[in-house]
C-alpha cells in the first residue's frame, strides 16, 4: 500500500489565520492566563468556604431559594446559544457571512455551557447529591428534562465543534512545523488521520448538515426546558406560556451580541482585520436589530397581559419590577437591552466596530439583569404567601466572587483555545477547494457536491 496524499484547500488568509498559533507561549499569554487564574482561585476559595459553611454564606434565604447562581445558569446557557445559532441555524439558511464567524461562535458555546452546568452544582447545598438525578430521577420533573437536554446539548456541541475543526486540525498538523513536539502530537492525535480526501469532505458536509438540523432542534428544546424549570411552577409571572419563547429569544439575542464582542477582541488581538472585515459586523448588526425588536415585542406582550389580567399575586411582582424594589434594575435593563442599543445600531453601528461592541456589551449586561429581574422578584413575592411574606435578597461577596470566577474560567478556556487552534475556519472559508491535484484519479462527486452547496448551486 502506498502512502496516501494529503490535501488542504487553498485559503489566501491561511498565514493570517495561523499566525496567532505559531509563536511560543509568551509573557503576555502567561500574564493573561495568570490573572484569570487568580480570579478563578478567589472564586474557588469562596466556594470551598460555602461548601464548608453551607448556603447560609449566600444571600439566599426563605423564600428566595434561587439567586445569582441560577441567574448565571440561565445567562451562560443563553450565551451558549450563539454558536448553534450562528453555525447551525445560519448554515441551514445558507447565510454565507456566517462562515468566518462560525468557529468563534461555536467556541463560545463550548466554553460557556460548562459554566452554566457548574452554576447549578454551585447552587446546590449538597453537590454530592447530583447523582440522585440519575439514581432516582423522575421523568415528570422539569429538572430532569433540564439535566437531559443540557447534557445532550453540551455533548452534541462538542461533537459538532470538533467535526468542523477536523480539517483545520489536520492542516495545523501538516503546516505548523516549528511548534513544540507536544503540540504537534496533539494535532496528530486529534486529526484522526484526516487526509482531505473528497469523500471525507463529502461525508463531513453531510454529517454537518444533518447535525445542524438536530442542533437547531436542540437549541430550541434546551432553552425552552430551562425556562420550564420556572414556568412549570405556579409562581406568579413565571407560570406563562410565553416564558419559553421569551427565554429562547433572549438567549439567541445575548449570544449573538456576545459573538460581536468576541470577534472584535479576536480581530484586534490577532490582527485579523482582513479575515473579519467590518461587513461581517454589519450583518450581525441587522440580526441584532431584529432581535431587539423581537425582545421589545415579548416584553410588551408579557407585561400588557399581566396588567390586564390584574391578578393580585401577579400584580405584586409586576409593580415590584416597575416601581418597587427592582425598578432601578428593571429600567437599567430596559435601556441597556433595548433603548440604547437600538439607537446605536440605527444611527452609529453601521461600519463602526467600536459602537457595535458598546451596544453588545450593554445588551449582555442588560440580559444578565433581565434574568435577575425575572427570577428574584417572583421569589420575594411567592404566590401562596404574597400577603404574609415579603422576602428580600441581597447577594453576598461569596456569590459575586464565584460569579467572577465563572466568567474568568470561560475567558481562560477561550483564550487558551485561540492560542492553539485557528479561530476562523480555514476549510470553510477557502476560496479554492479543488482536491484534483492531490487525488487526480479519485472520483470527485463528493467534493463537487459539497462545493455546489457552498456556492448555492
Amino acid at each position, binding site marked *: *500500500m502506498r502512502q496516501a496524499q494529503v490535501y488542504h484547500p487553498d485559503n489566501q488568509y491561511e498565514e493570517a489565520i495561523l499566525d496567532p498559533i505559531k509563536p511560543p507561549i509568551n509573557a503576555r499569554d502567561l500574564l493573561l492566563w495568570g490573572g484569570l487564574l487568580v480570579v478563578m482561585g478567589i472564586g474557588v476559595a469562596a466556594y470551598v468556604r460555602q461548601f464548608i459553611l453551607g448556603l447560609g454564606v449566600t444571600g439566599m434565604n426563605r423564600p428566595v431559594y434561587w439567586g445569582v447562581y441560577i441567574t448565571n445558569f440561565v445567562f451562560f446557557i443563553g450565551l451558549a446559544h450563539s454558536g448553534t445559532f450562528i453555525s447551525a441555524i445560519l448554515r441551514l439558511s445558507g447565510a454565507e457571512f456566517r462562515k468566518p464567524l462560525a468557529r468563534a461562535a461555536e467556541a463560545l458555546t463550548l466554553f460557556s455551557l460548562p459554566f452554566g452546568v457548574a452554576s447549578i452544582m454551585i447552587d446546590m447545598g449538597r453537590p454530592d447529591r447530583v447523582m440522585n438525578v440519575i439514581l432516582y430521577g*423522575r421523568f*415528570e420533573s422539569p429538572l430532569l428534562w433540564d439535566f437531559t437536554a443540557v447534557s445532550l446539548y453540551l455533548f452534541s456541541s462538542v461533537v459538532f465543534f470538533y*467535526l468542523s475543526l477536523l480539517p483545520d486540525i489536520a492542516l495545523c498538523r501538516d503546516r505548523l512545523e516549528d511548534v513544540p513536539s507536544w503540540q504537534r502530537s496533539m494535532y496528530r492525535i486529534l486529526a484522526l*488521520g484526516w*487526509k482531505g480526501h*473528497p469523500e471525507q469532505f463529502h461525508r*463531513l458536509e453531510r454529517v454537518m448538515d444533518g447535525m445542524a438540523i438536530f442542533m437547531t432542534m436542540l437549541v430550541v428544546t434546551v432553552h425552552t426546558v430551562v425556562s420550564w424549570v420556572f414556568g412549570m411552577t405556579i409562581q406568579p409571572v413565571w407560570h406563562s406560556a410565553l416564558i419559553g419563547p421569551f427565554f429562547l429569544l433572549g438567549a439567541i439575542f445575548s449570544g449573538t451580541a456576545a459573538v460581536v464582542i468576541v470577534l472584535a477582541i479576536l480581530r484586534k488581538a490577532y490582527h485579523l482585520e482582513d479575515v473579519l472585515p467590518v461587513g461581517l459586523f454589519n450583518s450581525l448588526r441587522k440580526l441584532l436589530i431584529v432581535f431587539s425588536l423581537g425582545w421589545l415585542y415579548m416584553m410588551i406582550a408579557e407585561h400588557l397581559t399581566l396588567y390586564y389580567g390584574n391578578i393580585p399575586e401577579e400584580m405584586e411582582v409586576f409593580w415590584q419590577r416597575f416601581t418597587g424594589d427592582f425598578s432601578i434594575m428593571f429600567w437599567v435593563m430596559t435601556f441597556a437591552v433595548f433603548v440604547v442599543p437600538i439607537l446605536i445600531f440605527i444611527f452609529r453601528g453601521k461600519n463602526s466596530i467600536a459602537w457595535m461592541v458598546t451596544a453588545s456589551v450593554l445588551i449582555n449586561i442588560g440580559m444578565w439583569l433581565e434574568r435577575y429581574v425575572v427570577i428574584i422578584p417572583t421569589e420575594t413575592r411567592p404566590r401562596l404567601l404574597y400577603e404574609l411574606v415579603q422576602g428580600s435578597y441581597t447577594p453576598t461577596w461569596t456569590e459575586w466572587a464565584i460569579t467572577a470566577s465563572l466568567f474568568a474560567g470561560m475567558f481562560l478556556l477561550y483564550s487558551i483555545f485561540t492560542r492553539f487552534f485557528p479561530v476562523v475556519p480555514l476549510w470553510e472559508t477557502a476560496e479554492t477547494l479543488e482536491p484534483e491535484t492531490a487525488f487526480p484519479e479519485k472520483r470527485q462527486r463528493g467534493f463537487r457536491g459539497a462545493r455546489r452547496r457552498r456556492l448555492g448551486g
Partner: protein
Amino acid sequence: MDLGNLISSLFLSPGPGGVIVILVMGGAATVYFFLTRWIIAGGKDEDNH
C-alpha cells in the same frame, strides 16, 4: 396487564427517569462515534487499492 399504569409509573416512580437520561446520552455517544468513524473512513477503500 394495565398498560396505562405501567406508563404512568415510568413517569412517576423514582428511577426510570435516570435510565432515560442514560439511554439518551448513551445513544448519542454511539451515533456520534460511528458518524465520526464513517467520516474519517471516507476514501480509505480507494487508497487501499
